[in-house]
């Protein structure tokens, strides 16, 4: 489509720039705050919008923990980042593996109650963690999985959304391809590995991005089931650094931790985006 309407172009750009500002300004503010000292943030009202010179100290304190300027004790963010990374990765990979296999079963195998199974999976879309949180907690606690990676990840792994997406994708794979593979002598798992998996790579990339962020941003579930500081994910850690009441908050380190917590999901989006755009272009006929 070729359009030559300057007014429309200007309007479109203004809208987009406004959108970028709305998203970008808070991030910038977080960054600026993380480069100043705690005193500068509290004493200058309003806060300076120019980066300060305390960046290295703020980030070091956030990552390694230690004594704050107010004499409090700050837990290190590095282990929390590690917990978050492991959790998000396990959730994303686990969801993809399980969804791929269950979608494969639902689409390619004729077994009694196939549609019942599919609809049962589909119905779980209506039961997110928040709805079933108490029974899930009871189960996880009875299994002795509190304060473990298993407890953090397993209840979140089953994914109706991903199963549904893969099912829809598998349904678009021509039957003749399945038949050609059968004539070539490929068994079901061979077909899955050699044909379906490579064809699904773009869907897998897209889902990985979505599910990684989903796993990274988990807050309520870890809050409920972790009591051991060594198992806190970073999103929870940030909240715990903001002390209520009389104790002073080390805002520069909070902001530094927030910045650090934003980096991995941002990286995943940027890196995977390239990858799946390439995949989309490749699959074009």
């Amino acid at each position, binding site marked *: 489509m070729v359009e030559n309407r300057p007014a429309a172009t200007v309007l479109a750009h203004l809208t987009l720039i406004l959108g970028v500002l709305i998203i970008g300004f808070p991030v910038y503010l977080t960054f600026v705050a993380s480069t100043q000292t705690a005193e500068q943030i509290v004493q200058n009202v309003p806060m300076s919008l120019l980066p300060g010179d305390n960046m290295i100290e703020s980030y070091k304190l956030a990552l390694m923990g230690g004594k704050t300027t107010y004499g409090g004790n700050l837990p290190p963010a590095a282990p929390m980042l590690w917990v978050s990374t492991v959790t998000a990765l396990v959730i994303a990979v686990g969801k993809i593996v399980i969804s791929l296999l269950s979608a494969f079963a639902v689409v390619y195998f004729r077994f009694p109650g196939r549609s019942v199974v599919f609809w049962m999976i589909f119905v779980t879309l209506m039961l997110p963690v928040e709805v079933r949180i108490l029974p899930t907690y009871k189960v996880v606690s009875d299994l002795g999985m509190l304060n473990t990676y298993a407890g953090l990840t397993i209840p979140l792994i089953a994914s109706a959304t991903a199963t549904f997406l893969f099912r829809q994708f598998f349904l678009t794979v*021509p039957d*003749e*391809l399945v*038949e*050609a*593979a*059968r*004539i*070539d*002598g*490929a068994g079901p798992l*061979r077909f899955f590995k*050699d*044909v379906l998996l*490579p*064809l699904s790579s773009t869907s897998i990339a897209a889902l990985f991005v979505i599910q990684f962020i989903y796993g990274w941003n988990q807050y309520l579930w870890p809050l409920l089931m972790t009591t051991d500081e060594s198992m806190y994910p970073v999103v929870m850690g940030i909240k715990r650094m903001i002390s209520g009441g009389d104790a002073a908050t080390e805002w520069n380190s909070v902001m530094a931790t927030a910045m650090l917590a934003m980096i991995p999901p941002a990286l995943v989006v940027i890196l995977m985006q390239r990858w799946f755009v390439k995949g989309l272009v490749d*699959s*074009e*006929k």
Partner: protein
Amino acid sequence: MGAISLRNVEKTYAPGTGAAVKVIHGVNAEIVDGEFIVIVGPSGCGKSTLLRMVAGLEEITGGEIAIGGRVVNKLEPSERDIAMVFQNYALYPHMSVFDNMAYGLKIAKLPAEQIRARVDKAAKILELSALLERKPRQLSGGQRQRVAMGRAIVRQPQVFLFDEPLSNLDAKLRAQTRIEIRKLHAELGVTSLFVTHDQVEAMTLAQRMIVMNAGVMEQVGAPEEVYATPASIFVAGFIGSPPMNLLAGRAEGNLFHVGGSVLALPQSAPRDGPLTLGVRPEHLAFAANGLWTLRVDLVEMLGAERLIYGRAGEAALVVRTESTSAAPTAAQLLHLSVEARHLHWFDASSGRRVTP
């Protein structure tokens, strides 16, 4: 080695339920080793289903299929020693041409150098050697079609199965590929079953053809034989382009009444009742004093020849003539004659041929 026996083969969908549909009604055929057989028929006649039953992609619900003397009813497709070329080629989109052709051999765990040798040989025959590293999407339709054939060749099967492999090609490429398939068959001598709805393809490719209609074999024979002596009204109307003129009339005594004129019946024809007369368009000739008077409706120029559409009384007729003479014009009246040996007689109720 590659003989195929179809013994009373039947196919019923959803057998044993109220919704059971029988789509193949007891097909019998003996195909000898190295033969090129074309199964032809209109859409929905069961020809693809029959082929897929031979391939093992559809369950056989009645009768037996044997390949090379071995009953294959319960064997997986990969165990039947067949290779199939699909209508949409069914190439693996993410694999290179080489990998597409080699995939079946890799699964069969052939040594790598043997795979390489077989694929190279097939690629050479099909002129694909320069394209081995490409992906299917980088190939034209004709090239993809050849890759699909290459994938069949490298398996060195007893039987090739083709499921309308030419229908996605344009007319020129189709004619060219037809010739290539014939050459390939002459070179490899492998038994081939070729399904098509295109009677021209069937006529040009087949050593013997099986004409199917509504799940029943109407006729089996060499193309010349099927064309010269169609076994039923259906075959007469299906094979040949334009199709045979079919005129319904009545036999009374030894005379046949049709389109306002009267013909003498041959000895073997029934003396009474409804009959259908068939005449090929090229067997109708213009004469000074003919059997029918044709009122011309339309003239189609095809280059070397001309098709003249018109009506003789109630009956619509097509005449094929060489285009050397002057073209008739619309509404012109022409006299037609036909030699008795070019007449085909069919029983109107059963549809079967009544004269030899």
